[in-house]
């Protein structure tokens, strides 16, 4: 992670605009911690160099949303992951890491086709546990919104949305559902028109 002085950032901004993608730093392994700002286009896969990109814009993009700003308070204690039911069953799902990626601006890791964030079950355990009052679930929901805005969501979510649009219900009601209800002595389902809901779902 790059250590930066304020001066170098301001110089950098004036040099690299308008195609400036966050603040880009390179670290030469041989030189240890010698850091200097470079343009993103110059070095990405240079051999012997490790390029670390910190995209502050992503954090700010989230901070502008309803609950996203709380991510700045995260100190990576891992209490969220320790209590996460999804992390138990999916070894790659790690709320702490998602927070870190947001802080480091690793947008491409989160906003992409097979994004890990859809594994969040929104149980709010992390929300309860976080000592810094970060709201990981809210942040993940904001990330999901970002993804959805770009038209990326898993099949299941798409189907649910379609189902709500058509029937007003999030699950599809089949003959089996009716039979099941009858056997349990429940009243038959009335129709549930989406009505005004469909207006929200309009793109």
């Amino acid at each position, binding site marked *: 992670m790059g250590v930066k002085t304020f001066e170098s950032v301001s110089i950098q901004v004036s040099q690299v605009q308008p195609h400036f993608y966050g603040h880009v730093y390179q670290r030469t392994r041989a030189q240890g911690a010698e850091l200097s700002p470079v343009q993103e286009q110059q070095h990405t896969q240079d051999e012997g160099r490790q390029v670390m990109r910190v995209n502050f814009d992503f954090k700010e993009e989230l901070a502008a949303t309803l609950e996203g700003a709380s991510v700045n*308070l995260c*100190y*990576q*204690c*891992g*209490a*969220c*992951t*320790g*209590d*996460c039911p999804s*992390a*138990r069953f999916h*070894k790659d799902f*790690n709320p*702490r*890491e998602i927070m870190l990626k947001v802080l480091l601006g690793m947008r491409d890791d989160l906003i992409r086709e097979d994004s890990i964030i859809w594994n969040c079950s929104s149980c709010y*355990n*992390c929300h*309860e*546990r*976080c*000592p*810094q*009052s970060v709201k990981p679930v809210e942040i993940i929901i904001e990330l999901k919104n970002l993804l959805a805005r770009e038209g990326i969501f898993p099949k299941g979510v798409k189907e649910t949305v379609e189902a709500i649009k058509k029937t007003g219900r999030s699950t599809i009601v089949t003959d089996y559902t009716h039979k099941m209800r009858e056997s349990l002595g429940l009243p038959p389902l009335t129709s549930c028109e989406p009505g005004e809901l469909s207006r929200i779902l309009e793109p």
Partner: protein
Amino acid sequence: MMDVGRHPRIKLLAYSEVEEISGYVGNFRARIRRKARYIREEDCTACGDCAKVCPVVKPDEYQQGFSSRKAVHIPFPQAVPSAYLIRKEDCLGLNPIACGKCAEACEKKCMDYDMSDRFLELEVGVIVVATGMEPFDPATVAEYGYRRYPNVISSMEFERLICAGGPTEGHFLRPGDGSRPKRIGFIQCVGSRSRKDGQLFCSNICCMNTVKDTLLLADHYPDTESTVFYTDIRAFGKGFEDLYQRSREVGVQYVRGLPGEIREDSKTGNLLVRAENGSTGRLEDHEFDLMVLSVGFTPQNGNGKIHKLLTLSHTSDGFLLESHPKLKPVDAPTKGVFFAGTCEAPKDIKDSVTQAGAASARAGILLSAGKVKIEAITSRLIAEKCTGCNVCVKACPYSAILPGDAKKKIPVSIVEACCSGCGTCAASCRFDAIEMRHFTDNQIYSQMDAILEENPREKIVTFACNWCSYAGGDFAGVSRLAYPASSRLIRTMCSGRVTEDFIYHAFRKGAAMVLVSGCHFADCHYINANRWTQRRVDHAWDRLEKLKIRPERLQLEWISAAEGQKFAKVMRELDEIRKTVTIEEVQDTIAALSKPGK
């Protein structure tokens, strides 16, 4: 503590409370309540016969409730004076005597059930506050199950369990079933660095306390497996890193990552913990025989009382505020009062001892001199003008003004030894009965007159407090930051010195703008005098609005000595507003403010 008890020049008043303090540096009078022990302490030999027969059994606070004590007891084995006392609230009855067994058992006949609290008046020159802090109660962190699961204990309880003088006589046993735990987990930062439970600050001692505990366990029971869950290990003091490394060398596992919750295996009483190991990024399942919650600290609850007794203030985290964080770290803002230990901030034993030494040395300076030198800048009362309205008494952050009486026409009186010279009293007096030495009203009016003699519409009259804003302006200059030349600074000791009339006078003289600036609230060098600045400026804004004068022309800014950048920025912004002030506006203002009765 024994040495303190035996020292010929130290008078130790145990089981006592300070009720009232009056006076000022060198001449404090303290009223002390000596609580009734119901046992004459000079006669008691601490033989313990009374406790043997006492029928009342209560949990022992000193042993963290792990063992019991009687209603007649000695608070802890090393207590000085070494004498028993009866807890009135626990005893079956002293008046009328309900049981009286202790009196029968006492061979020396030291029991005195008719004893009542005595009061002691002391005259003292200086006061050292060393009221300490309180451990955080981890029961509020519901997910760790403290109090719900017997084998989850706090670090304070751990200390008792491993202590040779503890309830188990040094045998480390777990409270659930009395067996010896082999796998022990520690959780750090319980009640510290948290916005949810406990305090925002780092409690400073818990990391090293845990490191020490793990080494103790490794020393006493080499087969124990200790695991520490932490956020950051803060081993910052002398030899601390060394101790931490030693703890790692003996095989203590340090896992970076806090567990989400503790669950109990109801059959074995063992504790199940799932936590992410930050170094591998993997979730790990652990099973422990005992969990220790390394608790943080909270400021002492009684601090509110100390505040009132000695007119002290505290920082946002609740610890007492020192006079200056770097230059006067053990001095209270009230002269003649010093701090030692954790009442000022969480700190370990070494730092507490260091601070105690510093506090007593600072106290010794005052006591050996026998006199105090005070700054020449103090307030002076013009008694014939004082109506005894006591407005200044409330304004004084140092309680340096003794109240007068308006009905009996007794003026207030100023204790100059307490006065620090902020001038808040002079600013609050509506009868001009208080004059400041060196920062007189005349001087300030003359400065304003001189500034506004020519082209007043191009000037911003800026009141800057000596400690922060004036220094901030200085810093802007030294840093060679450019800002418009329209501002003219008038220095006051505190922004609280700025009377509303100063502001109106500047406007009456045709000033385009007035800026009042001072220290940030937490940094006020006169405890809280700048709160009065805020109130006065708020009031002035209201009045300007009523007189149809644009309130933006009066500005209030908090600029610290390090904020040269902010000073320059504020000046640039104000200059933009100044440019919008028209000649007509200034003339209207002069007319509005010059009307008689205004």
